[in-house]
């Protein structure tokens, strides 16, 4: 099982596209097809990344963006989580909030941005609110789905043992809905990351999105592309970490179910 053969052929095939892109890129640069303003040599990109990292500018901007993601995500995801649990457990509240939230969801997040800025100014608060709107819906939907899908026999068992609400929540609802909740966290964190970049492109004086806008305005395309690499890498890492968590929690669930069957 552990000694699966290293698949050299797949790895080599996967390298074709990056190599072709790099070759075309480098030859376009060498042949001076486009000006340096539009296309930089691949090596310049590397040196820009190194330079940005060494000057501390990159770390500072990344930290600033991450701070916004964390606060927006916490606000949006926790409210989505609470509403999701409540709406899944109570048909009345589901009817009360459901259609209203669904109607609001029809509005693309970016359309809220001008309104948020008019109401709250262009400061930190507006960005956090914007990010939390993005984080809210996936968390709400997935929590709702997970909690609704908790098998009826679990509820019955909880009733037999006469669980208090607190115990009911921590012992039955959350463990039962966990895989779905983790999917919600993953999706909602991914969207938070996209919206923080959007909020920073819109108007900011720090963060990775700001760095890219600044690079664009100064016609420094190397900074813009470096920004793309950075946001892609961070997005990838967030997703990968939560995917690992997801499989772990799923494993636990499978083993329990396997034993009970």
């Amino acid at each position: 099982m552990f000694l699966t053969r290293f698949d050299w052929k797949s790895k080599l095939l996967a390298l074709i596209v990056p190599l072709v892109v790099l070759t075309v890129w480098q030859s376009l640069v060498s042949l001076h097809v486009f000006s340096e303003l539009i296309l930089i040599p691949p090596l310049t990109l590397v040196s820009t990344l190194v330079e940005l990292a060494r000057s501390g500018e990159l770390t500072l901007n990344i930290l600033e963006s991450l701070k916004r993601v964390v606060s927006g995500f916490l606000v949006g995801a926790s409210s989505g989580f609470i509403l999701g649990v409540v709406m899944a457990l109570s048909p009345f509240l589901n009817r009360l909030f459901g259609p209203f939230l669904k109607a609001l969801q029809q509005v693309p997040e970016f359309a809220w941005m001008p309104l948020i800025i008019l109401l709250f100014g262009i400061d930190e608060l507006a960005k956090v609110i914007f990010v939390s709107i993005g984080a809210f819906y996936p968390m709400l939907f997935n929590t709702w789905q997970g909690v609704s899908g908790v098998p009826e026999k679990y509820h019955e068992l909880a009733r037999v043992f006469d669980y208090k609400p607190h115990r009911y929540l921590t012992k039955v609802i959350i463990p039962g809905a966990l895989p779905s909740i983790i999917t919600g966290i993953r999706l909602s964190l991914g969207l938070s990351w996209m919206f923080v970049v959007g909020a920073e492109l819109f108007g900011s004086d720090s963060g990775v999105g700001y760095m890219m806008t600044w690079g664009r305005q100064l016609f420094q395309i190397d900074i813009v592309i470096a920004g793309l690499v950075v946001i892609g890498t961070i997005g990838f890492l967030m997703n990968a970490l939560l995917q690992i968590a997801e499989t772990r929690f799923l494993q636990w669930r499978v083993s329990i179910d396997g034993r009970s069957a």
Partner: protein
Amino acid sequence: MKRLIINKRTKAVAVSVTLPVVLLILWQLFTCGMFASFKLVPSPCKVLNTFVILFSGPAFLHHIAASLERVMSGFLIGIVTGFSFGLLMGLSRTAEKIFAPSFHAVRQVPMIGWIPLIIMWFGMTELPRVLIISIAAFYPIALNTFAGVRNVPRHYLELAAVYDYKGWKLIRRIIIPAALPSIITGITLSLGMSWAILMAAEIFIQTEFGIGTQIQMGRDRFNMALVVAGIITVGLLGFSMTMLVEKLAKAVERERGIRTEL
């Protein structure tokens, strides 16, 4: 019995309507008369009034038409390329091994992040706006077409082999019909994505016409009623487009169901 059902239904509708109505009343109370505590926030009547004014001139319809045209071109480019890409990766394992890793790597970049780069390359023109929308439409359809093609049941392919279906005939007669539900899901998701990114495209890449432009204009002039009217318009249009596509999808599904029965 029937009355009971109707009663239950009316009750459900009444509950659903409660929250919007309460919020609307609060909104009106806080923006009109003596409770008016936020000067900036327009009253519901003012928003309604703005709608009346907007619909009395041709400019508003012009904005809507521009947005619809933009989203449709981006969406069509995105789904045609995304479908072909997904089909190719689904049909050939070699193609999957070549393209999938790079595709998944590029996909990690949040779509919004592409905007500064494509503005630098193409300027503040229509091209980058359509391009970003088609990027947004590309991912869901590509992923869903790929998954659909890969999950074609084995016995369909065996049957096709018996009938000696090959190449184009195999794709058209067996693979695409079998993958259709997944492809349709992809199209619906792509449309939603296109519509969501349209707003970003119009706000970040300034343009003369578009609903996003109009919302942005409202912000620049501190005309909040215009901003709210714009938001409502976007929501309603997005909703009707989604409904339309879902209806179409259902019709296609039904057609397909009949054919399987035959």
